[in-house]
């Protein structure tokens, strides 16, 4: 997909002016937060489980090479095939090759961010294979030619009226009088249309929430059941997953499952947690005949051993964006690539480069709400700051910004000069405040005064007044 992250500011302006989007974003603020709170409050062990989940992933990352080897051996032992892909292009080629060998025309897909990351749909399409997204939200945005705006609720930027219009546009069998005004009817329509697709597909492609080293199992966690139909009905099942999805044992999965759904949707468990190990067994009457796993690196191995290693603990629950005031304001598309919100602000520069993704870690108030809800205790603001440090070291910030900051720091490092300068400036600013005690416009402060008044300072600085007070006190004591 095209990367528009460098145009984040312009994207954000468009998003802020989009009434439909702003209405839809209200659903994020209203829905996810309360549900998560209730689910967390109902489990006294939740905070302990967060620690445990963090520790499991930290252990995995420190031993990732060995767990990958163990996992691969188990997949092979269960009759599956493991393919390694260093880059997105390699992963695409591997998947295309599998599809071609299966003589595939139609491919169904379960919801997967990793296939968004590698731009799989466009690639398959270009090569004459029709990808059909089966998750309701993904299906809707595929009809619109869009990308997900949220990692677990891909169509969260849309309202039902927009979905109805899209269905009427694309589903040409729909009679005009069919009532599609409510989500129930829209879901029913998508269900009908997609049912036949599951049977038509030759290959089913899913992502994975976990890869289990102990057993060679891949796990998907879903609510709709589309992922399961995608992987049980076609002849070939392809799992695409990045290397950090590994967990050691099923018991470790169980720990992380207890924080995953609660953090994501406020459910205790998602409806379907499906553990898949290898292809159809002897005597089985359904299930895929081939089982492939495409293990993707695409920049993850380079994050290990750096200050961004902790980001690889991410389990893609979406809690960070659900709680992010910036995401609430601009939605996911403004971030300009696959991963939005705080997790995207950290991950995107790692994967596409800080020269292109640099806005994202800067566009944060550091309010810390993301970290406070992250089930894996990823220090997201800290890592966004690390990106800012990398940018600063490389001189990527705008020159005016660097100049302003440098000037300020020059004084802040020299208390006597600072005292002098502020004692001169503040009375002037104070005068400008007039009787109302506020300033409506100020040169070089347009970013502030465009949207708000600038409260005027009191007449003199605290330090000036304190010094006078001390002097009076000394005199009185004499």
């Amino acid at each position, binding site marked *: 997909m095209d990367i528009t992250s460098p145009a984040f500011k312009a994207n954000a302006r468009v998003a802020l002016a989009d009434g439909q989007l702003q209405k839809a974003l209200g659903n994020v603020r209203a829905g996810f937060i309360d549900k998560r709170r209730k689910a967390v409050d109902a489990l006294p062990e939740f905070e302990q489980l967060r620690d445990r989940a963090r520790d499991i992933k930290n252990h995995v990352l420190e031993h990732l090479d060995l767990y990958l080897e163990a996992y691969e051996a188990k997949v092979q032992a269960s009759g599956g095939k493991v393919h390694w892909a260093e880059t997105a292009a390699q992963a695409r080629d591997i998947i295309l090759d599998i599809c071609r060998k299966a003589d595939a025309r139609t491919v169904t897909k379960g919801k997967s961010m990793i296939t968004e990351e590698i731009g799989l749909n466009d690639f398959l399409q270009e090569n004459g294979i029709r990808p059909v997204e089966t998750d309701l939200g993904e299906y809707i945005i595929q009809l619109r030619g869009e990308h997900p705006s949220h990692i677990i609720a891909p169509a969260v930027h849309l309202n039902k009226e927009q979905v109805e219009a899209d269905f009427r546009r694309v589903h040409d069998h729909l009679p005009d009088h069919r009532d599609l005004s409510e989500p129930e009817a829209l879901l029913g329509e998508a269900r009908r249309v997609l049912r036949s697709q599951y049977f038509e597909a030759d290959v089913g492609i899913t992502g994975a929430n976990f890869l289990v080293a102990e057993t060679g199992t891949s796990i998907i966690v879903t609510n709709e059941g589309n992922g399961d139909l995608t992987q049980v009905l076609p002849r070939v099942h392809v799992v695409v997953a990045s290397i950090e999805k590994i967990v050691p044992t099923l018991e470790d999965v169980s720990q992380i499952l207890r924080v995953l759904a609660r953090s994501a949707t406020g459910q205790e468990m998602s409806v379907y947690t499906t553990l898949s190990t290898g292809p159809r067994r002897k005597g089985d009457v359904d299930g895929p005949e081939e089982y492939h796993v495409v293990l993707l690196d695409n920049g993850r191995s380079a994050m290990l051993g750096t200050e961004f290693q902790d980001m690889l603990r991410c389990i893609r629950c979406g809690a960070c964006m659900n709680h992010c005031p*910036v995401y*609430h304001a601009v939605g996911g598309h403004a971030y300009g690539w696959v991963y939005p919100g705080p997790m995207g602000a950290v991950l995107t520069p790692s994967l596409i480069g800080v020269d292109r993704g640099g806005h994202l870690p800067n566009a944060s108030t550091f309010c810390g709400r993301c*970290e406070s809800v992250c089930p894996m205790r990823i220090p997201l603001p800290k890592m966004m700051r690390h990106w800012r440090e990398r940018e600063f070291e490389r001189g990527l910030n705008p020159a005016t910004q660097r100049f302003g900051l440098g000037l300020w720091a020059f004084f802040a490092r020299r208390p006597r000069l600072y005292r002098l300068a502020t004692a001169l400036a503040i009375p002037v600013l104070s005068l400008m405040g007039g009787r109302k005690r506020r300033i409506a416009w100020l040169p070089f402060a347009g*970013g502030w005064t465009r949207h708000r008044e600038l409260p005027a300072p009191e007449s003199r600085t*605290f*330090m000036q007044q304190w010094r006078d007070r001390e002097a009076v006190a000394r005199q009185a004591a004499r």
Partner: protein
Amino acid sequence: MTGMNETSDYRPRVGLFVTCLVDLFRPTIGFAAVKLIEGSGCTVEVPMTQTCCGQPAYNSGDRTDARAIAEVTIEAFEGFDYVVAPSGSCAGMLKKHYPGLFKGDAAWEARAVAFSAKVFELSSFLVDVRGVTRVDVKRKTKVTYHDSCSGLRELGIREQPRALLSSIKGLKLVEMKDPDVCCGFGGTFCVKYSDISNAIVEKKTASIDAAGAEILLAGDLGCLMNMAGKLKREGSAVEARHVAELLAGMDDTPPIGGWK
């Protein structure tokens, strides 16, 4: 003020970290802080060599300047029993982030760790350290309290200011919707991404107005200037003040951003 340990004659020496915004824009908060800290049985001094906590540099990725400013601050406050700041954000910087700036420099890191251990945000210092349970102030008004992000999430400040406010005779605290959601200030964020900041603060001022309070209180002047600036631009009658002003009974000055 009552509740503090009155058995000991020793009055701890507190260094007031004024914060640059209070120094420049609203000295009243500084004097209110001095009054409250003295009232809790401490002596207060104000080192003249302090400037800013260094967050603008630190959060812009400029570690070199951030560290240089941290050195100035640490040197200014060595020798005090406590360092108190009327800001959760600045206190958070001094307490949670300074040691990390000196990683790999053993001597300075030790100084930074020792310094950080002495740092407290004002309301937390009064309640958690000095055991203050009430203030001797009467004020008939209705207030709402915004939890500033750093204070809330880095330092766990939530109940302390509310506990002290509840001791003001005649004062009623009405909670706004989502008092713990960011106001959109974010330091340099509010000018670098002013449109987004504006969208965030608009939601905040809507919650403030809906709460039906006369006064908006918070523990951080940055957030207050942002919210007050927006409230005034929108023509709201809600006054904005730092919580210390009310607790110290020093709210006779014009509110932040003036009257309506």
